[in-house]
C-alpha cells in the first residue's frame, strides 16, 4: 500500500504547495508504514520530478501525454483513480486549490471515498481511527473530523506542514493510464495569465494594498517593495470592486484565501471579511495612517504612518540588508 500524492506542475516543475503535499503524504505514509508515490501529469522536466524525493517520495508516476498538460480536472481524476488502484492507495493527498479541490472531489466520487478539504495539520492515527483538523468558517474556527471511509482523499492547506527537504531523489516511472474522450469535451478558447508569475496561493510573502492607497496610479511603491521581497501582490475587496486592481488579486472571505509566511497590509483597515482571507498567515504586518484601524488587533507588527513615505524606505532597507 502506498500513500498517493497528486502534484500540480507549473512551468515543468512541481509547485511549492504540491511539495508540501508530498511532505505531508510522506509523513502520513510513515505513520501507516506505507510507501510514498507521486502522480505527475503532462509535460514536465524529469529531473525536476525526481526532486519529489527531497520531500520524501520514493516513486513518481509520470504520464507525459501532452493532452494532460492543460489543466483538466476530469481527466486528472480519471488518471488519479487508476494510479490509486495500481498502487493500492487508501490515502490520497493533494494541495488545496481550485484544481486540487476539483480533482479531489471527482476522484472521491469515483472511489466512494470521503474528501476532506482545508486540512491544517498532520492526522492523528490510532487504533484504526483517522482524525484530521481542518479550517472552517473561513479560518475563524477549526473542526476535528474522524474520517471513516476506507479510502480517504485529503486536500491540505498551505503551511499544513513545514517540509525539511533532503538530497534524496525519487525514481521517475512512465505511467500510461487510459484516457476517455468524454473527459475532453471542453474547448479552451483563451487563457489570460497575469504578467507576474508569482501566484498568491503559492507565495511566501504577500504585499497587499487597500483603499488607503488612494488610487491605482499609486501602486508603484507597493510593487517595488514586493519586488525587493520577492513577494506577490494582493488587494482588498473595495480595491478590486473599484477596478484599481484585477479581480484575481482580491484577498478575503469572498476572494482568495492566503496563508503566506508574511503578509504586509498597506492601507487596509481590516474588515472581518478581509481578515478571514489572511488569518492563516504566519506573520502579519499592518501599515496604516489610522491608529484605530482594526487590522492592528490581528497584526504582529504595526506602523502608524503615511504609506507613501514608509514603503520606499522599507524597500531601501530590504535592498540594503542583502
Amino acid at each position: 500500500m502506498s500513500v498517493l500524492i497528486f502534484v500540480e506542475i507549473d512551468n515543468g516543475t512541481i509547485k511549492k504547495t504540491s511539495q508540501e503535499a508530498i511532505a505531508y503524504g510522506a509523513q502520513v505514509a510513515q505513520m501507516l508504514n506505507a510507501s510514498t508515490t507521486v502522480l505527475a501529469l503532462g509535460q514536465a522536466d524529469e529531473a525536476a520530478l525526481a526532486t519529489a524525493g527531497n520531500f520524501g517520495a520514493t516513486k513518481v508516476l509520470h504520464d507525459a501525454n501532452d493532452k494532460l498538460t492543460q489543466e483538466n480536472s476530469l481527466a486528472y481524476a480519471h488518471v488519479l483513480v487508476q494510479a490509486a488502484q495500481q498502487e493500492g492507495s487508501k490515502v490520497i493527498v493533494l494541495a488545496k486549490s481550485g484544481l486540487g479541490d476539483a480533482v479531489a472531489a471527482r476522484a472521491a466520487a469515483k472511489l466512494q471515498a470521503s474528501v476532506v478539504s482545508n486540512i491544517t495539520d498532520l492526522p492523528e492515527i490510532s487504533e484504526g481511527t483517522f482524525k484530521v483538523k481542518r479550517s472552517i468558517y473561513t479560518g475563524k474556527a477549526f473542526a476535528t473530523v474522524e474520517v471513516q471511509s476506507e479510502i480517504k482523499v485529503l486536500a491540505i492547506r498551505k503551511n499544513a506542514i513545514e517540509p525539511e527537504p533532503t538530497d534524496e531523489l525519487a525514481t521517475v516511472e512512465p505511467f500510461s493510464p487510459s484516457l476517455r474522450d468524454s473527459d475532453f469535451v471542453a474547448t479552451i478558447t483563451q487563457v489570460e495569465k497575469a504578467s507576474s508569475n508569482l501566484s498568491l496561493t503559492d507565495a511566501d510573502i504577500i504585499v497587499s494594498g487597500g483603499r488607503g492607497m488612494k488610487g491605482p496610479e499609486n501602486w508603484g511603491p507597493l510593487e517595488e517593495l514586493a519586488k525587493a521581497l520577492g513577494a506577490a501582490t494582493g488587494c482588498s475587496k473595495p480595491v478590486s470592486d473599484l477596478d484599481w486592481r484585477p479581480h484575481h488579486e482580491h484577498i478575503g472571505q469572498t476572494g482568495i484565501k492566503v496563508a503566506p509566511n508574511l503578509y504586509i497590509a498597506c492601507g487596509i483597515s481590516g474588515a472581518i471579511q478581509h481578515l478571514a482571507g489572511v488569518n492563516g498567515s504566519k506573520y502579519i504586518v499592518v501599515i496604516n495612517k489610522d491608529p484605530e484601524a482594526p487590522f492592528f488587533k490581528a497584526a504582529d507588527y504595526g506602523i502608524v504612518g503615511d504609506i507613501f513615505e514608509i514603503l520606499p524606505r522599507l524597500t531601501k532597507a530590504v535592498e540594503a540588508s542583502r
Partner: protein
Amino acid sequence: MKILVCITNVPDTTAKITFTDNNTKFNKAGISYIIGPYDDYALARAVELKESNGATVTVLNVGEADGDPQIRKALAIGADDAIRVNAEPTDSYFVAVQIAHIAKENGYDLILMGRESLDFNSGVVHGLVGEMLGIPSYSPVMKLDIDGTTAKLAREIDGGKEYLEAPLPLVLGCQEPIAEWKIPNMRGIMTARTKPLNVVEPVEVASMTNLESYSLPAPKGECKMIPAEEAESLITLLRKEARVL
C-alpha cells in the same frame, strides 16, 4: 432550459463564531443567516439567464426548516420553485448525493452553486455532483453565457483566467463577477409566498466522516508597534525575530 441553483444557509459574513455543548455544536444564538454569498451570485446569473434565454429556475437547499426564509428570499429574487431536502447537511459527500439524486430525478441542463459554502469552505460539492452525474464540472466560474446547448464560460485559474466552451449539461461553481447580487422587490416578495416549496426526505448515505469537535484559533499576541520614524527596523525584526525574510 432547466436550471437548478443549489443554495446554502450560512451565518452572515460578519458573524462571530462560537460553539456550545463542549465544543461539539455551533452556537446559533444571535447569528443571522443568509444565502451563501457565492450561491447568491449563481442565483442572480440563473435569473438573468431566465430573462435572456428563457428558462425555469429551481432552487435546492439541503438543510433544516430554519433555512426556509432564505429559500423564500431566493424565490422572491426570481426562482420559480424550490426543493428542500429535509436533513442536516453533515458533510460534502452527503450533500452531493442529495443534489445528484434530485438532479437525476428531474434532469437539469445547468446546475449552479457557489464555488464553496461560507461555513465549511470545502469547495468540493460541484465536483462530487458532476462526477456522480457523469457530467463535467467547472469552478470558480466568473462569466457564463449560454448559446443553444453550449456554455461559454470564464473561470479563474492560478494567477489568471481561462475561457472555455463546453456542452450542456454542466455543474458550475460560481463567484463574482458572474452577476450582480439581486435584491428582491415587493412584487417578488409577494409572489414568493405562493411559489411551491417542496420538502422531501433525504436518500440514505453511508457515513463518511464524523465531526468530533470544534476549536477556535489561539488568540493573537500583542501587536508590536514600530514608530514611523524607525520604519526600517521592521525589516530587521522580520529577519531576526520572526525569521521570515
